[in-house]
């Protein structure tokens, strides 16, 4: 509405400053606004009246009869909803991972556009992180899936799965994580599945490296079973 129309309608010049009075009263105006308004109120009877009305409104605000308080039971209900939400998010993530080639391709593009020194740092960090993840996940905390089988980070269905040779392995109980890690590295083997209910792992080696890998694995005293899976 223009000022003219407004004046026609109400027959009085509106006071430009009056709209700020509520915030003058609640004390949230900037120092400049506050000072301008104080000077204005000193000479504007309408704004003086307006300020008094706002002040008495603050004083007469009704006290709510019903109050709401946080409770442990209410928070527990919220946490249950968080759990449900997280579960659904995880399901979506799993579905998304199945369609991961697109994501990997985007990562590849982003990586190739990264400056070379940063790229090397990233590559090193990614490798270090992957090693750490393998170290942490393998021995202590296999993730159990809905069927009760255990899965590892490099489980079947992983987009990284290749068409190498599969070897089933059973390790002796006293084999340490570091020994397992070193052996798999030497044998150029990647875990694809396991441990199964009987404690076996399925690893994959490149076809060209199959004979060398089998020899290395069979030669290790802490490997109780080496079986080529056809």
């Amino acid at each position: 509405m223009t000022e003219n129309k407004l004046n026609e309608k109400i027959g009085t010049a509106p006071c430009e400053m009056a709209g700020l009075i509520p915030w003058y009263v609640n004390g949230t105006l900037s120092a400049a606004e506050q000072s301008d308004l104080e000077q204005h109120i000193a000479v504007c009877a309408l704004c003086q009246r307006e300020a008094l009305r706002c002040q008495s409104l603050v004083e007469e605000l009704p006290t709510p009869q019903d109050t709401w308080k946080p409770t442990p039971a209410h928070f527990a209900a919220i946490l249950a909803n968080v759990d449900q939400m997280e579960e659904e998010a995880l399901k979506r993530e799993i579905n998304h991972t199945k369609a991961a080639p697109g994501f990997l391709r985007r990562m590849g593009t982003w990586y190739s556009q990264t400056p070379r020194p940063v790229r090397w740092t990233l590559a090193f960090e990614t490798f270090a992180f992957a090693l750490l993840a393998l170290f942490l996940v393998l021995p202590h905390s296999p993730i159990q899936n809905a069927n009760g089988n255990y899965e590892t980070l490099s489980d079947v269905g992983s987009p990284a799965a290749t068409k190498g040779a599969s070897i089933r392995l059973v390790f002796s109980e006293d084999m340490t994580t570091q020994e397992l890690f070193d052996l798999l590295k030497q044998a150029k083997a990647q875990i694809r599945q396991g441990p199964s209910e009987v404690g076996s792992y399925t690893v994959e080696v490149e076809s060209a490296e199959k004979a060398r890998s089998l020899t290395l694995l069979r030669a290790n005293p802490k490997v109780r079973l080496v079986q080529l899976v056809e």
Partner: protein
Amino acid sequence: MSKYVDEAQGVALLKRIAAKDRKAFEAFYYLYAEGFGRFLMKMLKHQEWVDEAVNDVMLTVWQSAGSYDPEKGRLSTWLFGIAHKKGLKLLERNGRYREESLEDYPEEADSDEDGAPELYNTDMSPNSQPERVVMGWELGDAMSWAFSKLSADHLAVIDLCFAEGYSYQEIADIVGCPINTVKTRLFHARKRLAELLARKGFSLPEQVKVTI
């Protein structure tokens, strides 16, 4: 809430919540839920609706903690904005939103063009005779009754300004409308309040109580 809660503590907790720290989430709940729960209680007026709205706010906090940007405003403003949205959603779902439509206030609908509210076209204390004076009522009773009759939009701006102490910019952020609309809406809310009080034969005093 903004007056009582340590903003820095809340921001620190929110960072931990972004990293899915449940202890921080619990601490955040006990630090903030009472404040925005109080605001929602005035808006929704039903305990079970507030339970639900607070739940919805907390789930949003869990999911979006990382999206809060302190550069864009105070944490409490961000939180009240979420609470206001969730509250309106509940009112809409229960068919309680805008019982008093803005069509009753056409001036408010086109207020965005002009910053100056039409402050002087209506006397805040109408001369019309009260429709029904309730015997034994005091101003406080009339105020409680009038507040129960205000629309959610009018109640929100009055509450955010005079009870919660937010600036006009913050209220605009919370209710999601331009500053001029906030100013005009608050004017009309107060006008409506004065009309309701007048119906019961009351008006707000135009002088401030002096306590000795």
